[in-house]
């Protein structure tokens, strides 16, 4: 039985300008690698034990030059992670970053030059959310395997054994249910205040609006249990929205650190980050969410409309009536959403709820097997108990 080891999850964001005229070629390269990421010999995230999620996104309609954005969510220290990337993804990174002007060929192959490059081009996030902080990639996958093994055990047990176990474990004695405790939901009064401050219009609105989906984005969605969302939107050009956004993300960053399982009540987000770029002119948001885009946005609006309004009303083009104007909201999101041609997930078939459940199971089993008497009994050392 192993001991506990705490890890810290971190967000890495690297942004660099694409060489003039190279965008089309880069797009093709990303799409090509993205399609066969599982078997790519040069970009082996699967061999990087610290990576939870990673993605490349081309941002082409914001600012004077096109940019390549690489983000990943990883366990452990920054330095160790860069080392790991050189080892498992160096050649792939080299192929991709060559399309960016400040990158010199070969930089990603050596720790020293790679560190220098990343240091020069990484951006710090204003706010970072993790649904299961402290649970490493390894633990997520390990817990899932543990659960599958237990299910198998139950499956293969003879009906008699199960019957005996059931009757011996008198249910009432053992049921001790834990309700979710940590809740980062915005209180109603704060929500109203936020909506007031960003000037949300409460009237019914124009029914003569219609959303159109963006095919290149939708084509890449719904291929596993979760999807990747990247939004890049211009922030309103005035002091108040910019100040307010900074304040809100600052407060948010402190609050979501306590979160376990849900971002402001939303239970379908694994990780999310918010970055303010371009001297306060641009907001970049990315999330790894479970299920389909429509239901993700719907859940966001159902559960956390004030948070959504508070942040996004500071951006150009946000519907004046806020996110309850669902049609306009979805429209503006699709317009600012960037396709994610290269998306990696370490555990593509697991949802947040799966991971939390597996984690509880694993914690409980560890506790059980680590409690002295039981451990000895199960180990066959009856005499020590007697």
């Amino acid at each position, binding site marked *: 039985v192993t001991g506990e080891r705490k890890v810290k999850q971190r967000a890495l964001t690297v942004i660099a300008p694409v060489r003039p005229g190279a965008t089309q070629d880069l797009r093709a390269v990303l799409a090509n690698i993205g399609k066969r990421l599982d078997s790519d010999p040069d970009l082996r995230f699967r061999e990087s034990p610290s990576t939870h999620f990673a993605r490349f996104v081309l941002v082409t309609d914001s600012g004077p030059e096109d940019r390549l954005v690489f983000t990943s969510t990883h366990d452990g220290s920054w330095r160790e992670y860069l080392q790991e990337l050189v080892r498992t993804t160096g050649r792939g990174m080299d192929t991709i970053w060559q399309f960016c002007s400040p990158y010199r060929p070969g930089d990603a192959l050596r720790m020293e030059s790679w560190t220098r490059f990343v240091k020069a081009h990484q951006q710090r996030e204003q706010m970072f959310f993790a649904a299961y902080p402290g649970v490493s990639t390894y633990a997520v996958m390990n817990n899932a395997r543990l659960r599958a093994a237990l299910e198998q055990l139950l499956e293969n047990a003879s009906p008699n054994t199960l019957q005996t*176990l059931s009757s011996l474990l008198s249910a009432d004695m*053992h049921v001790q249910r834990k309700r979710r405790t940590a809740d980062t939901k915005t209180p109603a009064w704060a929500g109203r205040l936020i909506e007031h401050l960003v000037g949300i219009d409460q009237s019914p609105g124009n029914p*003569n609006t219609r959303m159109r989906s963006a095919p290149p984005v939708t084509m890449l969605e719904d291929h596993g249990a979760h999807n990747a969302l990247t939004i890049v939107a211009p922030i309103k050009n005035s002091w108040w929205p910019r100040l307010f956004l900074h304040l809100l993300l600052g407060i948010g960053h402190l609050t979501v650190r306590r979160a376990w399982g849900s971002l402001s009540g939303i239970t379908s987000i694994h990780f999310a980050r918010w970055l303010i770029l371009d001297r306060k002119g641009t907001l970049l948001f990315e999330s790894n969410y479970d299920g389909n885009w429509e239901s993700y946005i719907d859940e966001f609006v159902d559960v956390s409309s004030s948070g959504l309004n508070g942040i996004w009303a500071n951006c150009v083009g946000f519907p004046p009536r806020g996110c309850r*104007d669902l049609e306009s909201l979805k429209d503006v999101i699709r317009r600012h959403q960037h396709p994610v041609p290269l998306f990696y997930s370490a555990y593509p078939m697991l949802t947040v709820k799966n991971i939390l459940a597996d984690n509880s199971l694993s914690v409980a089993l560890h506790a059980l097997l680590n409690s002295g008497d039981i451990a000895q009994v199960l180990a066959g050392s009856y005499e020590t108990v007697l």
Partner: protein
Amino acid sequence: MKKNHTTGEIFSAGLADDLGDLQGLILSGYNHLDHVAYWFLHFSRPTLSRAWLAALLPHVTTGDWRQPDGRVGKPETTLNLAFTPHGLAALSFPSASLQSFPEEFLTGMSAPERSRRLGDTGASAPACWEIGTPEREAVAPIDVLVILQAPTPERLRELEDIWQVHHGHHEVSAHAPVQIGALLSTEREHFGFADGISQPEISGSPGRSQSPTDTVAAGEFVLGYLNAYTMLPPTPTVPALADPRHGLPPVRHRQAEGTRDFGRNGTYLVFRKLAQDVAAFRRYVHAHEPPEARGLLAAKMVGRWPSGAPLVWAPTADDLAFSHAPQNNTFSYHLDDPDGLRCPIGAHIRRAHPRDGLERDATQSLLTTSRHRIIRRGIPYGPPLPEGVFEDDGQERGLFFVCLNADIKRQFEFIQQTWMNDPKFAGLSHDRDPLVGDNLDPTAPDALPRHLTIQASPFRKRYTNLPRFVRVRGGGYFFMPSMAALRFLAGSQTVSEGKEANG
């Protein structure tokens, strides 16, 4: 399945004043009329389609059931209409204005990306359908769905004969054979369970609500009224120039000047023909449990007993004390069964309508579910499989699933994709709706596990390799216009004339 309707009730935000403008099916399933015919028609000569519609108009059943003498009486037979985009175009609906309809309505139910959402794969894929298959759509696309309802098969037959002649005169042909549905004598669906118990109430209709959680904003089901987000639902519009007679109301917003509201008092109708493999269902239950436990397994799949009694109230055996309103519908997952020990988390009724049990927060859960409701108007077809029979008799049987909603994507499709067919629903891993989900299809095998997990203490019980009991045989997305919009489409009458014809 259906709800009795009496007029004279006060609906929210002006709906009461517009009863005569609504098609009656929105407010009532016509409980007293057990026999239904669905006609999927194609306008072979579009130039005659307007005349066809104009002649039909006075016979369309509205929500206003007052007789000439002022008394309110149930209609003896009913007729309702709904159109596809192709049908609207054939009726000279301005083609540019079609873009004001939602994408899912324009692409239709059989589009590949919709099949992925709806789980219409394998033998349920549109290519295998009887109604609305792409192959047939290319030759004689569905333009209009006509729904007739009558108290007896004979009366229904009479109606069909009358209208058949009318269709012939206007070169209106059949896309698919007429589909006849009828309530079974048991008043249950083919698997043997009472159906249609939980039905949302349109907000503001007093005295009928079984539970406040079932009262939903009018704009969730009728365009032109505030919806669950206190917004007016997006509505199809036409330029004012296209409506010189001012038959359509103006769009209720100052930024929408110059446009007229084609959608107000209309709604979207979803039709699906769902074949039920009753023998396979019985065989599965039979093979997996000893005689005394079979009833419970079937009930666990549904979430109710055959009588309709919910497992939340009657966890071990059917109990007639809970089989009728309001007991059959007033229960809380959050308070009475948060862990699914009575009604499994993945049971059919818990997926289709999760009530207050979607998240640990009951209030939040109620808000969320109130935004994904549908009004169901379905009816079974085909003869029942006799009791005790375990082999298929080759007869077709199933359910005509019909539902009404203001937003197909957010209501019908959301329920289908995110609640019924999502293996990850509410923290599950490999389960889909055990009754109607896209479970193992022998004609389209894949490697994904299909489980049914029945929560129990101390160990859950898991059934594996659940087969698909319900196959999709056809379907489509339709728009059911208001009377004013029908008159606009027929292009023949002014508003005042229309009202007379309708009175």
